[in-house]
């Protein structure tokens, strides 16, 4: 059996590991655009100088060798030939497969802003090469502008600030981290960012990037007319899946490669996992991208199992969870950050430097934010994911621990028993 995996990040490598556990003999090849293996989530740490590039690796050095995996780095898939069961790369090589996994990930989305594709110092933060380019550009740079105040944007801004650059973040919404946090939780980060000298601009968008004759970035003009001087721009305005090599094929594509619960694409023997795919997301019940690390790993494991002849279904495809830590303030959030209407109840507990909030509808938890003290947040996360009825007086929701749901299998594994009614 010939397995071909495109991509060497969370989804690709977890699939490779899973395949090898089930099939000791099959020929296993991983081809990735990346020259090195590293965790994208650690790039801000590398940029800030908190961690060496080498320590951004998330698998042991001998990962490939131990598993007899042929790894070809720095090579991009250029065209898929499903009829021939082959992938052609940008080096002109042709790789044949019996089972193919598309785990090519996603790239920074460049919003439609004037000059964004012409400016010489416009970057994303998706690769070690990006880190290197930003580091070089920041050498004699008066300041940096980060487009987007989401997790990547704030992480990047803090890293650039730590390097000594003057940094501004521009976020279209009225607050930082609008997808993850409510106003109250976001405001504590905004205060911390400001205290460290980072300029925060909310409710505005960059309308054009200002360039000199040499196409060097000199600033950005906002849609309200303001001009922010800067020498480099980092785009942190979301990602788009890397699937141009699928053009002209019958692989079904929505906002990513469409997969079913077995991580199968619309074509036989072709699977997809991680940021490149769209799947049935648990919280919304809709097909959507699920661009978080834990799900990329899980989807990779499911795809790997099924590629090696197993039969495993993706469960708990719950993408509405976030964790963050900026300037020593920790936050974990799940589900909705705000109650959408009056049919939801919101409970808040504050004190000892912590802010906790849960959102309930019809006795079920629909959202939660834990800021400061994040211990045991996972229990609330599990209740939201499982849509578990927790008919309890609002305030005491914060006291819930697994002791309230304690139930173990005969092998001692904890479980959430759905037949168990939690009225207390």
């Amino acid at each position, binding site marked *: 059996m010939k397995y071909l995996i495109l991509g060497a990040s969370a989804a690709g490598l977890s699939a490779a590991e899973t395949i090898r556990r089930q099939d000791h003999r099959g020929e296993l090849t991983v081809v990735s655009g990346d020259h090195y293996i590293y*965790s994208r989530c*650690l790039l801000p740490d590398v940029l800030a100088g908190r961690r060496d590039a080498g320590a951004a690796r998330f698998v*042991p050095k001998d990962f490939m060798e131990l598993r007899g995996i042929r790894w070809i780095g720095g090579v991009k898939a250029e065209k898929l030939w499903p009829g021939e069961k082959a992938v052609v790369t940008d080096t002109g090589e042709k790789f044949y497969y019996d089972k193919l996994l598309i785990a090519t990930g996603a790239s920074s989305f460049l919003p439609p802003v004037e000059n964004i594709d012409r400016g010489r110092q416009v970057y994303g933060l998706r690769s070690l090469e990006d880190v290197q380019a930003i580091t070089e550009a920041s050498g004699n740079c008066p300041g940096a502008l980060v487009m987007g105040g989401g997790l990547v944007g704030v992480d990047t801004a803090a890293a650039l600030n730590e390097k000594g650059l003057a940094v501004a973040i521009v976020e279209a919404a009225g607050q930082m981290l609008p997808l993850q946090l409510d106003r109250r939780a976001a405001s504590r980060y905004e205060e911390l960012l400001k205290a460290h000298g980072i300029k925060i601009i909310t409710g505005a968008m960059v309308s054009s990037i200002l360039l000199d004759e040499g196409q060097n970035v000199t600033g950005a003009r906002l849609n309200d007319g303001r001009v922010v001087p800067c020498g480099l721009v980092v785009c942190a305005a979301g990602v788009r899946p890397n699937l141009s090599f699928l053009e002209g094929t019958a692989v079904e594509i929505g906002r990513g490669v469409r997969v079913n619960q077995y991580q199968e694409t619309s074509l036989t023997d072709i699977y997809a996992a991680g940021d490149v795919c769209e799947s049935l997301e648990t919280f919304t019940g809709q097909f959507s991208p699920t661009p978080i*690390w834990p799900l990329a790993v899980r989807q990779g494991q499911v795809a790997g199992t099924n590629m090696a002849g197993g039969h495993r279904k993706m469960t708990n495809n719950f993408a509405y969870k976030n*964790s963050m830590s900026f300037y020593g303030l920790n936050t974990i959030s799940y589900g909705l950050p705000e109650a959408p209407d009056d049919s939801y109840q919101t409970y808040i507990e504050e004190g000892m430097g912590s802010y906790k909030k849960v959102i309930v509808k019809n006795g079920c938890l629909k959202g939660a934010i834990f800021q400061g003290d994040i211990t045991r947040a*996972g229990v609330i996360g599990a209740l939201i994911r499982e849509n578990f009825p927790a008919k309890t007086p609002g305030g005491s929701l914060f006291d819930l621990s*697994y002791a309230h749901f304690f139930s*173990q*299998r005969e092998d001692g594994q904890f479980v*959430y028993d759905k037949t168990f009614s939690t009225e207390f």
Partner: protein
Amino acid sequence: MRRIFIRPELCAGCKNCQVACLAEHSPAPSVWLVNLSDRGSRPRNFVELNAAGRPVPLSCRHCEDPECVAACMSGALSKDPLTGVVAHDPEQCAGCWMCVMSCPFGMIAPGAGEKSIVKCDLCVDRGSPRCVEACPTGAITLVKGIPPQGNKEQAIQVVGGVKQ
């Protein structure tokens, strides 16, 4: 594979297990020398009250298919295929708290003021978990030879703690 089995009905809520855990993971592993005023002194196990106000001793299950390991983006958490222990490498940890977020049972806590986590290591260097040795009632016992996926047919063997 080894696991700490829990019989909440036997728990007296004495928290001896928590003190034992604290001591074992402090610089001088003695109950007398634990610095309780140090914010870093945090046991890796929990005794929590359930809805009826009864204590339940809880600790990491070292799950067969651990959510925390799947969530770990730095490679700091790994499951040993031989011992089954879910181990944590503080050198590699980025303090992203995705494991805290992902453990459905709330068994991982962030370390105090550092980029590292507080999580049961089953006292791998010790032979048997100190919490189990410290339990006077048999509410927690070490069981080894756990069959995968909870196969009822295979017998399990109690190797530590008080047999009931």
